[in-house]
């Protein structure tokens, strides 16, 4: 599945200032792993060592927080957008 990962401004120092990155992945965990292969070090900003998403980070699939879906195991479809937002972002938007 080709999915687009939206990179927040504070993490673009890892991605050469790219605001979005395309990867092939079938789950959120896989997408983040692929992102880390491309830009080493970025995943540990987003996830704990055990793979869970860090508390102050929200990861969204098509605007929906994966905490309300299946966490990092949330499946991805072709064309999905995976968003990463720091800080106190609550809820969801579209």
């Amino acid at each position, binding site marked *: 599945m080709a999915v687009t990962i939206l990179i927040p401004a504070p993490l673009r120092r890892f991605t050469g200032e790219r*605001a979005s990155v395309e990867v092939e992945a079938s789950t959120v965990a896989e997408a983040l792993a692929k992102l880390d292969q491309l830009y080493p070090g970025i995943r540990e900003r987003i996830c704990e060592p055990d793979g869970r998403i860090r508390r102050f980070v929200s990861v969204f699939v098509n605007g929906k927080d994966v905490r309300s879906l299946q966490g990092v195991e949330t499946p991805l479809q072709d064309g999905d957008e995976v968003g990463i937002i720091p800080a*106190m972002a609550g809820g969801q938007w579209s």
Partner: protein
Amino acid sequence: MGPSMHCRLGELLTQRIGNTPLFCLRRLPGIYGIAEGVQLLVKAEWYNPGGSVKDRAAFRIVQEAFRAGLLGNGKRLLDATSGNTGIAYAMLGAAWGFGVTLVVPASIGEERRAILQAYGAELIFSDPYEGTDGAIRLARQLAADYPERYFYADQYSNPANWLAHYDGTGVEILEQTRGQVTHFVAGLGTTGTMMGTGRRLKEANPSVVLVGVQPDDPFHGLEGLKHLPTALVPAIYDPSLIDRMELVDTEEAYQLARELAWTEGLLVGPSAAAALVAALRVARDLEYGVIVAILPDSGLKYLSTPLWHPDRS
């Protein structure tokens, strides 16, 4: 605003801005092994009517704008804000009858959005992936495109922001500590609290140590604070004023927020907790001292966020 015939008794909402309590922490210093000669005092800014320290700056900005004829002429107040300044503007706009338009990242918490809308503010959402700096850039653009519609308050550049603290917070701390304050700790966002309070304290006693608090990484969860090396730097910021800089990890601050709730009965937000992390570091190095930390808001607006849900993965 002029006096109202309906208000011959009672007081005005805005009279309750400032003069916040200075609480002494009783149990936490012992838990952290702080020397008995050190007092750890916290300025409880959630006692402002809008619920945060930002009432001070917003009120002064609005007062100065009315005085200069920039508001009260049908224009709307416009600014970028991650939340608390917006709440203060929105409250004042409702109370004084001027329109308020706020540019906020689309990702702001539900509580904040609900509060802002309850006060009748107009919200313009900026790209959540661009954060607070994205909101600032959009507000600047709107101000440039529609000068006849908006008074651009620009809390990051407006000297009324730090002057509110120079004339308010700083004086209060000197009075409340009877001039004995030795260290002042405040988080850096717009930097108005530190610039204004810090200048006033240094004038009274040049040996007062000013401790600035920033997130330890550009990617953080300390709402209201800025990682200044990588952010748009506020025009009012003068780094030479600050004696010591403390960098705080988000998780460390969240943990202390929870600890403060159960050991002191104080429910605070993430930037308050970050200030206290820094204050404890300062306290540990001292035998004697009077440390004052600014706690910008309470934890109530963050109840739906991970701050209070440590086990939610």
